[in-house]
């Protein structure tokens, strides 16, 4: 699993943009990291993780797993040890001290922020489902003319193309900043903050167009 903010962080460690990162290292339409044929993570090398300074939350948490219930209450669990894992993990200390040692705190914060956006998206989808406020099919996406076959310049891989343009932080921030006449933040944390804000504004707009639930 890898969220847009994590893809941004890893891409910066590798010195590439998120568009290229998604094309090279993501699977399942940009939602997971690629694995090698033997199941190893694409970033695992004999000398360790290639993106360790910006490794995703799920890697930072291991061997803990984290779940959040519908009230937002967090629970942590311990995964059974992987026999091939070389990490040294003790049973002393608390979950809190472990999370602190792994630099998890900002990642949990971002995960919660994206979680809030996710809940808003689900709310909007439920509202649409109930009220059927979708316009006519051809309003902004005209169907191709009969007999015309649309051929993309580059054949996209169905599994590599992101499900949503929001997953590509660099591309979505470039678009947002071009519309707003502002500069794309160079620093990772600033870019994540702007990505969250841009998504909030997108959802604000959709919510205002739909009106109260």
């Amino acid at each position, binding site marked *: *699993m890898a969220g847009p903010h994590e893809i941004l962080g890893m891409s910066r460690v590798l010195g590439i943009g998120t568009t290229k990162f998604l094309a090279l290292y993501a699977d399942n339409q940009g*939602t997971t990291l690629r694995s090698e044929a033997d199941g190893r993570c694409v970033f695992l090398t004999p000398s360790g993780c290639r993106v360790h300074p910006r490794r995703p939350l799920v890697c930072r948490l291991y061997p803990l797993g984290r779940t959040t*219930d*519908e009230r937002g209450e967090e*629970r942590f669990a311990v995964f059974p040890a992987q026999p091939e894992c070389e990490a040294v993990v003790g049973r002393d200390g608390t979950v809190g001290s472990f999370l602190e040692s792994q630099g998890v705190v900002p990642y949990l914060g971002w*995960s919660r922020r994206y979680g809030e956006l*996710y809940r808003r*998206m689900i709310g909007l*989808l439920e509202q649409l489902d109930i009220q059927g406020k*979708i316009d006519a099919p051809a309003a902004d996406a005209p169907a191709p003319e009969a007999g015309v076959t649309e051929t993309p310049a580059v054949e996209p891989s169905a599994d590599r193309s992101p499900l949503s343009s929001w997953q590509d932080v660099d591309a979505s921030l470039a678009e947002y900043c071009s519309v707003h006449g502002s500069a794309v933040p160079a620093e990772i944390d600033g870019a994540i903050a702007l990505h969250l804000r841009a998504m909030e504004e997108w959802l604000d707009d959709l919510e205002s167009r739909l009106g109260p639930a």
Partner: protein
Amino acid sequence: MGKQEDRKTVTRRDVLKLAGTAAAFCTSFGFLHGSQTGGVVQGKHIGEWKQLQARWQQAEIKWYSGDVLLNSSEFPSKVLKHLQSDEMATVEIKWFRSGKLQQNLGKIAANR
């Protein structure tokens, strides 16, 4: 009237982007929807996972005179470990005088 209808319209493209983004986040973050959230994930591994709480890592008893803090003391580490690891653990507060119970303030669930 027509204007109001327009305001409340979202396009097919909006809906596709919304559904695609929600689906992407669902997988990217492991978010689940509605009452399944958490339960499904935990249920699959219930026999293998040891549930832990991460709400607190230190417990203190403090006593005051009015609003003035007089003293505070941390729970002994042995007690702390038990309280942290046991989801059903409770703390009971009782006042005694010369070994005789004066008042029982009741039990507080440590992990709720």
